[in-house]
């Protein structure tokens, strides 16, 4: 309806799922049979490129930022130390303590900054899409988190981890008929699924909303004209507000992903479940 209503040269461009699957332009060969079609194994499209850029930005900031560290920090070093210190003291050491925390610090730091950098590309001009809005990164990081907490549990309580997780102590044995399936689903199925979907859907929907607002603004200003321009002012204001909101979502989701991974590890390390 909207598309047909536009009799100007420029029709309304609605947000579409195809934006998350742009054309692969590099390494189209080799391909592999995947879910009923041939897909390039190492294909690079716009979103992969954005992720690589985000990763390069992280490497640049942190490798250069920690190159010549001084006891009394300079301004730049303070910012880098603040970021790393937030993850170290605010998330990892706070929940795991310093002894266990030191082992898992690299993984959780990587998760936090990788998610943050790839979230923030959603509002950076010309990139305009979050690297985490396509399922690959959330899924890979959820699997990392999954492996990390199971590894932590099995290493700490060899042989007893799965028993502790599935058969919580202090429960009368007939209740295990109900409790054990619930524990299994919530711990070993829902955790990775919710980690993946929470991150991906937040950024996915955030992108769709921003596209919707700015595409509508464009349409109202340049295609519809007249009184519709007033609608355009409204949609532009919403677009602006949601851009600011997306910054919050980017930081918040990175924090949530990192802290949930840490909490899962903490629960696995705990003596009793």
């Amino acid at each position, binding site marked *: 309806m909207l598309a047909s209503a536009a009799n100007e040269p420029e029709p309304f461009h609605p947000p*579409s799922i195809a934006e998350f699957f742009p054309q692969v332009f590099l390494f189209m060969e080799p391909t592999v049979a995947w879910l009923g079609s041939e*897909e390039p194994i*190492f294909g690079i499209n716009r979103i992969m490129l954005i992720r690589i850029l985000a990763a390069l930005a992280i490497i640049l900031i942190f490798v250069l930022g920690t190159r010549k560290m001084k006891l009394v920090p300079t301004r730049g070093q303070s910012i880098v130390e603040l970021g790393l210190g937030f993850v170290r003291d605010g998330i990892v050491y706070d929940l795991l303590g310093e002894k266990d925390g030191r082992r898992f610090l*690299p993984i959780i730091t990587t998760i936090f900054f990788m998610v943050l950098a790839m979230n923030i590309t959603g509002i950076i001009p010309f990139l305009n899409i979050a690297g985490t809005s396509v*399922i690959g990164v959330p*899924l890979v990081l959820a699997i990392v988190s999954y492996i990390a907490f199971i590894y932590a549990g099995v290493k700490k309580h060899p042989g007893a981890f799965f028993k502790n997780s599935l058969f919580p102590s202090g429960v009368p044995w007939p209740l295990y008929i109900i409790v054990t399936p619930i524990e299994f689903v919530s711990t070993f199925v829902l955790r990775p699924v919710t980690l993946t979907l929470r991150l991906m859907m937040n950024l996915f929907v955030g992108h769709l909303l921003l596209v919707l607002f700015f595409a509508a603004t464009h349409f109202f200003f340049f295609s519809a004209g007249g009184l519709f321009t007033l609608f355009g002012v409204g949609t532009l204001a919403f677009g602006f507000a949601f851009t600011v909101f997306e910054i919050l979502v980017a930081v918040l989701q990175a924090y949530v992903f990192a802290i949930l991974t840490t909490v899962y590890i903490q629960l696995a390390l705990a003596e009793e479940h």
Partner: protein
Amino acid sequence: MLTTPLFLAEEAGETAQNPLLPAPYDIIWSSVIFVVLLLVFWKVVLPRVQALLDERAAAIEGGIKKAEEAQAEAAAALESYNTQLAEARAEAARIKDQARADAARIEADLKARANEEAERITAQAHQRIEAERQAAFSSLKTEVGSLALDLSEKVVGESMDDARSAAIVERFLADLEREGANR
């Protein structure tokens, strides 16, 4: 109607993609990026930060230790000054006591010597007085004897022979002496 945009979009893209199904390159590149970032944080960034934190902690601890050492040094110096002061005071007291004792000894010495001297002088004086008394006595004895004889000769009017006169004088003097002793 709601799905129209998505269908339209499908024509632009290759095929209808389910956003929940990852493409192989999506997984591969996500994994590669994760591994690279993990290695960067694990092997480069975090060890550097840890080294810095350790260094900073050491610097702070070193500062505290240095301050403690300085304090201990100051306390030791104070202690040694106090000891020296106490020693000096004891030394002074000892010297004073010594001086007092010396003074007492010297005074006693002097007093003893003075007493001795005084005694000696007194004894000498006594001796001299005695000697002079003896001399006076013997000269007096002779003079009084001859005087008395002269007088008695004049009274009697006749000379007495020497032997007789000598016996008279002797007797007189003995009487005189006895009287002197009785008195």
